[in-house]
């Protein structure tokens, strides 16, 4: 009762039709995922077949599939490296755009950092492709996987940057003043005060970066060289062959990895901010 008054606005949950709209949204979002997950346990040998009984054979065959296994390792490794590099860069960028005196071009820097979010992936992908071709024409070095890593770091940075920046902006700068007042050098202030307090932002930024890299398809498809098959690319090539529920099992595993990361980052920020 008192709550309704203090909020001042009508409670959206009490509006007519809210329940129906919410149910439709949830169904559209999660029903397909549930069907994929459920049918990964289907004993039928065709993806579209009716329910034939419960089995975990498809998981066994997916995990024993050498190609799937290699693709998963590549994807996890790539996503992890892209996450670490982009989070470090994003943290530095967030500090530069939220701390200290305002500088000329600060807004320009912010825009530069965040516009990749709204640039169509296909455009980013093709421009990276052209860029690497130009570089290769100039200097004769085979970057190999490095190209993929650079591409992933590029589009991961804004995702890592935004939560870290939000956290820094929400943090009282007086705390950093207090540390300096108590004889901390700039580095000590960062190490003992800023960093511990900004960890929740960093962990959500890192988790986002990991997931964005882990399930990227369009850009990776354009950049990846022969043999550099990430998990999404592998699954895509698989759908063109005979479709068995093994593909469901693979998708479900992909989904699980993403979920684990989200939950992990959520737990870290929850624990840190108490």
């Amino acid at each position, binding site marked *: 009762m008192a709550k309704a008054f203090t909020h001042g606005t009508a409670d959206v949950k009490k509006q007519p039709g809210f329940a129906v709209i919410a149910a439709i949204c949830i169904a559209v979002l999660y029903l397909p995922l549930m069907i994929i997950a459920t049918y990964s346990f289907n004993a039928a040998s065709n993806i579209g077949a009716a329910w034939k009984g419960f089995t975990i054979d498809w998981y066994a065959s997916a995990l024993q599939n050498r190609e799937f296994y290699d693709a998963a390792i590549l994807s996890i490794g790539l996503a992890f490296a892209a996450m670490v590099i982009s989070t470090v860069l994003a943290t530095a960028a967030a500090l530069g755009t939220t701390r200290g005196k305002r500088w000329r071009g600060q807004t320009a820097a912010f825009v530069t950092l965040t516009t990749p979010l709204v640039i169509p992936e296909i455009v980013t992908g093709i421009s990276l492709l052209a860029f690497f071709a130009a570089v290769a024409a100039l200097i004769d070095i085979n970057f190999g996987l490095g190209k993929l890593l650079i591409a992933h770091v590029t589009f991961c940075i804004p995702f890592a940057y935004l939560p870290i920046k939000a956290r820094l902006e929400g943090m*009282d700068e*007086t705390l950093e*003043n*207090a540390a300096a007042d*108590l*004889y901390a*050098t700039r580095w000590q202030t960062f190490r003992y*005060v800023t960093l511990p*307090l900004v960890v929740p932002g960093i962990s959500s930024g890192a988790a986002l970066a990991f997931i964005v890299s882990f399930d990227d398809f369009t850009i990776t498809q354009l950049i990846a060289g022969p043999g550099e098959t990430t998990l999404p690319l592998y699954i895509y090539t698989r759908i063109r062959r005979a479709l068995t529920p093994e593909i469901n099992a693979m998708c479900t595993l992909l989904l699980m990895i993403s979920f684990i990361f989200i939950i992990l980052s959520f737990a870290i920020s929850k624990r840190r901010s108490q």
Partner: protein
Amino acid sequence: MTEFQSSATSGSAVDMLGIVKDFDTFRAVDDVTLKIQPNEFFTLLGPSGCGKTTLLRLMAGFETPTTGSILLGTKDISRLPPNHRPINTVFQSYALFPHMTVAENIGFGLKMLGRSRSEIKVTVDEMLRLVRLEGRGDSLVTRLSGGQQQRVALARGLAPRPQILLLDEPLSALDLKLRQSMQIELKRLQAETGITFVFVTHDQEEALTMSDRIAVMNAGKVLQVGSSRDIYEHPADRFVAGFIGETNFLQGDLEAVDGMSGTVRLKNGVRVSAGLSEEAPRHGAITIVIRPEHIEITDVGAAGSIAATVATVVYFGTDTHIHTHLADGTPVIIRQQNRRDGSRAPQTNALIGLVLPLGASQVLRD
């Protein structure tokens, strides 16, 4: 507590010399010169926005002066970063590190100074005792009450034994009762540690009761520096007089000057003797100021008295405030202590005589 005695032995603890601080075109601090003595409880008093915090931030090193210099002893510290100044701050918002325990907060300065673990522990325990938080060292600061957080902030500022402790309105977030007990606590801590305190407040009563000396500020300028008694009884100008306590202003002409006092002919012809500070004018039309409790009431027409009409009489328990006005309409308030032997207070609309005793009034500077 001898180990706490401040190391400064002679001269000022801090000298602010001709400090000006501009923010773009806005002058927040305007040519301030202050000499703060060692072991002093020094207060900056002034209304909101007058530049008190800016002055503290200049001393702490969060701002650099546009012109002027800040001396600590004989050393110019104007351009040193905060971590190189032996000056600590108690922030208005406390600014305790929320991810650390009480002990970690208090020990932070010593840790940054590279002191040994055992020394930090000894000092932290000592500080906890000093601010009466024994046994709370392992609590998270976020679990403490406002008054306890305040004390942690104090202990954190005192632990590295700075030469100066700056306190920016440290009591303004506390309720009245807690504030009063913390005022006493602060005085005790200052006396026990021998550290110079520079205390900021906009509460004139707090300033009067706590300070050795007060600097009254307005619009970036320091208007008067002096003991509580000086400031209260001999305000230098209209702003200081009006800002601190209730007061009366009377117009007149300065007729004769005799050293530190002068004879003033008030508008209604009555002559009074008023104090003259060095900056006060020596002739012409002037304003004198007198505190309500210094005015005496007598019968109308008594020699040397000013005739006044009583407008309202307000009873306050310990004293009574009598609002009157003179023949020309000038309002005058008189405060009388209430006595046990009944009402000596005049009635509304009564005609009374006011006497300004020798030396009770002061000629203003402006």
